[in-house]
């Protein structure tokens, strides 16, 4: 009798802890039956490409969540990086009319990385030095960054218009064909996203900084007592995140083909949900790079599937919000049962 009760509890635990995966699996099965094209090569490559595009931002934000924090300025940093890239890698820049030719691609990449790192530094410094909650700090930098984007878009003779017409070598570098499967081409940024995933895996698992990050996330006081420079670790995690957002923006300008003040808007919500689905816990000190990868992929699968079913973007916002809520509730459940 007792054994039966125990089994029932075990099954309930299993079902609830994996509820998100079960829901996603059911949606995928339903979409595949209703729209068989969903499992076609073109659709799978589309899902993989979109996953690769969203991966760097999720890898960045995951570090902040491991610290038991968050970063809601991520999307706007992507936007700023995107508009700066688009304005400097064109031969007819309306924002910089004095530029008669596009800047060298590596220079622009370094500029946007510096911008991302700087905003990340402001986030990390404010959190570490003034003990402010990351939510408040990143909310303020989100607004400040958006203001900067709007001002930047008004620069020169642009008057807030969208930026496009980027140089071909840059577009080719990001969206050029890596290889083909049948008639469908896999873009180059899929490879770059894979490289960044490997780099981040190395940083998280094989470096002292990575170990310090988990130590600070698990127990700050214990980490401090053990000799970890907590402030430096927090600042570096936020800077690393800023760099990843900047890289996402650098990809996005070429991937989308244009950049507007709205580029990157709400990207952080997708990235945060992907991290939580992938097991990066808001408890802090818990998470794996493979989890982030799976989280981004699963989220992309479900949204592409819903798109195949012609679900409107308005409804997708509600579904996204509910997914975050359920993922957090499951995360909280795991924490409470452990406690």
């Amino acid at each position: 009798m007792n054994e039966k009760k125990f089994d029932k509890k075990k099954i309930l635990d299993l079902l609830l802890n994996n509820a998100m995966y079960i829901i996603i699996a059911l949606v995928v099965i339903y979409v595949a039956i209703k729209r068989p094209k969903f499992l076609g090569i073109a659709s799978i490559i589309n899902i993989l490409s979109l996953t690769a595009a969203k991966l760097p931002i999720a890898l960045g934000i995951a570090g902040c969540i491991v610290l038991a924090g968050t970063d809601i300025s991520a999307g706007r940093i992507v936007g700023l990086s995107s508009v700066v890239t688009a304005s400097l890698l064109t031969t007819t820049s309306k924002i910089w009319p004095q530029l008669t030719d596009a800047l060298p691609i590596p220079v622009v990449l370094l500029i946007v990385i510096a911008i991302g790192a700087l905003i990340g530094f402001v986030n990390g410094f404010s959190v570490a030095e003034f003990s402010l909650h990351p939510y408040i700090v990143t909310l303020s930098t989100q607004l400040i960054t958006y203001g900067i984007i709007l001002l930047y878009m008004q620069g020169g003779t642009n008057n807030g218009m969208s930026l496009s017409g980027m140089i071909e070598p840059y577009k080719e570098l990001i969206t050029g064909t890596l290889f083909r499967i049948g008639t469908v081409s896999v873009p180059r940024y899929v490879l770059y996203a894979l490289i960044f995933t490997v780099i981040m895996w190395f940083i998280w698992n094989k470096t002292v900084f990575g170990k310090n990050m988990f130590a600070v996330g698990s127990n700050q006081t214990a980490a401090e007592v053990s000799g970890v420079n907590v402030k430096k670790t927090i600042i570096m995690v936020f800077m690393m995140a800023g760099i990843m957002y900047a890289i996402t923006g650098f990809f996005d300008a070429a991937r989308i083909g244009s950049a507007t003040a709205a580029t990157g808007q709400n990207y952080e919500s997708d990235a945060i949900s992907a991290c939580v689905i992938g097991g990066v816990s808001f408890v802090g000190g818990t998470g794996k790079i493979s989890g982030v990868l799976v989280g981004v992929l699963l989220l992309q699968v479900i949204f592409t599937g819903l798109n195949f079913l012609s679900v409107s973007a308005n409804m997708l916002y509600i579904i996204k919000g509910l997914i975050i809520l359920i993922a957090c509730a499951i995360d909280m459940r795991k924490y409470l049962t452990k406690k």
Partner: protein
Amino acid sequence: MSERPDLKDPQKTQQTTPLNLHNLYSHVKISVKTLDKIIVGLILVLVIVVVYAISNQGFTVEFDPRGGTPVESQKHLYGEKIDWEVSEREGSRFLGWAVDEDCKVFWGEDQEITGSVRLYACWEE
């Protein structure tokens, strides 16, 4: 030697710890049973929303004629093509529909719909 926290005075203890990154759930006071009910409730809400979203499926295609004769918006499923309509404006020639106001990216007549879209009429004076 690091200063030991004063356990009798919580305010003083907080002051000696410069950073305060608590985990998100450290102050949560809820039983696992109640949380289970909340999770099941949320899942039900999600299922209802998804079912509603699927039953009201369809992407909206809106047309901005920009001074031309109005064209009614259309509702289509994923992969369908828009019902091609032409707007007219006195003294101007209709070039087509574009996804951007600058008329840099035109919408092809055979292009498949993959999401809601707003199309702008492009004119030659």
